[in-house]
């Protein structure tokens, strides 16, 4: 029932989208963005899976099989797993920068309400 993973990823993403659109608290907006990022990990990993596939590891093949048998056989997609790793690191980096900005904004305007941070309005 991997379809549950797809729908869960999608729900988490939409939750994040809803938070980003409706909340004006900058910290909550950052949390919404993090939710949206996180949902992509679930999606990428679920898309990597095929029915009955094994992990893409060539260690200790079962008796009577060689590593190359595993490599030719039914395995999960290693590239999508790599992309998930990349996405996690980028997600951490983005969140760190956003939070640092949020703290500075809060210090400067004494508010985390995006509506009250008006200096940039043209």
């Amino acid at each position, binding site marked *: 029932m991997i379809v549950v993973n797809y729908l869960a990823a999608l729900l988490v993403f*939409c939750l994040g989208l809803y938070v980003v659109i409706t909340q004006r608290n900058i910290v909550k907006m950052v949390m919404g963005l993090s939710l949206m990022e996180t949902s992509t990990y679930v999606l990428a990993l679920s898309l990597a899976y095929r029915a009955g596939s094994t992990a893409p590891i060539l260690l200790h093949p079962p008796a009577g099989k060689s590593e190359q048998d595993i*490599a030719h056989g039914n395995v999960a997609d290693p590239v999508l797993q790599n992309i998930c790793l990349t996405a996690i*690191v980028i997600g951490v980096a983005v969140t*760190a920068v956003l939070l640092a900005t949020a703290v500075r904004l809060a210090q400067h305007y004494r508010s985390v309400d995006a509506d009250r941070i008006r200096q940039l309005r043209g």
Partner: protein
Amino acid sequence: MSRIAERTHRRAVGVVLAVCFLGVVGWTLLSVSGWGGGGQLSAETPLPAIARRAMLQALPAFLTTEPVSAVVYGFRGFDTFGETFLLFAAIVSVVVLTRAKETRHGFIGEERAGHEEQQEEEQDQGGEQKEQTSGERDAQSAEREEEGRDTSSPPTPDDEPVGTQEPDRAQAMTVITRTSIRAMLPLLLVAGFYLVAENYSPGGGFPAGAVMLGVILMAYTAFGYARISGVVNPDVLEIVEQVGAVAIVALFAIGLPLTGSFGGSWVPLAPQETLRSGGMLQVFSISEFVEVGSGLTIAVFALLGMRHDWVESDESDDEEDGAGEEDARS
């Protein structure tokens, strides 16, 4: 307090957009996965060409049993190279954003050094107005001196006091927490090194760097900043992070003359399932461990250490602020 209560905005727009997105992407995902069979791709679905190549070439090309690591540090190494410097740029941004005015270790003298240029600038722009402002400034600083420099910021940067701030006092936890953390730390530390050394985990250096951050944060929680300040201070960590970054650049650059391509695999391979198996992958993974571990630690402690960087206002100011906002709102 009612002023502080948070409201949601444009709730209808949010609901409509989120539901539309859910509908469109949900329908696409379900139709791509073919509705039946639990939605998963069938065993016959071919792997993308690059994924199959990674599976088949991981052993011959790098003598590693971890195709995911082979993709991260080998076949798509250039991608990881770019990602590393994206992380680096983000850490630099965090450091720039969070750095408070530094305590000075010695006399720098930028005011004195820039004096001549400042004079020229003022003469070029030439207005009498400028002369007046510089005159005013002198008067102000003279006034301050008369008052015995009681102001929080000195008139010129040259007058900043020299010396370091006292370290934070350790906020020790209970003896139970401290003892259990003391027992756990070496295990976690070894686990972190194991992840990167044996190249056993997909990603090697990335998860190991995160484990290292966990170890440092646990030590911080249990024993306070004073006990870890020898390792966790910007002077040490920033250099360590740059060493990691330089090692990655050097690793890639050496490939250029030796193999003819930037990032070509030039490190000799060792037999599989040994410490050095993977050759270039392993060196890249260790450099990444240094870079990620120190980078994340810098970011977390930069956020933890952010100080109030403004002049405190008194009550009357606050009231004025509040009144102004009420006016604007009504």
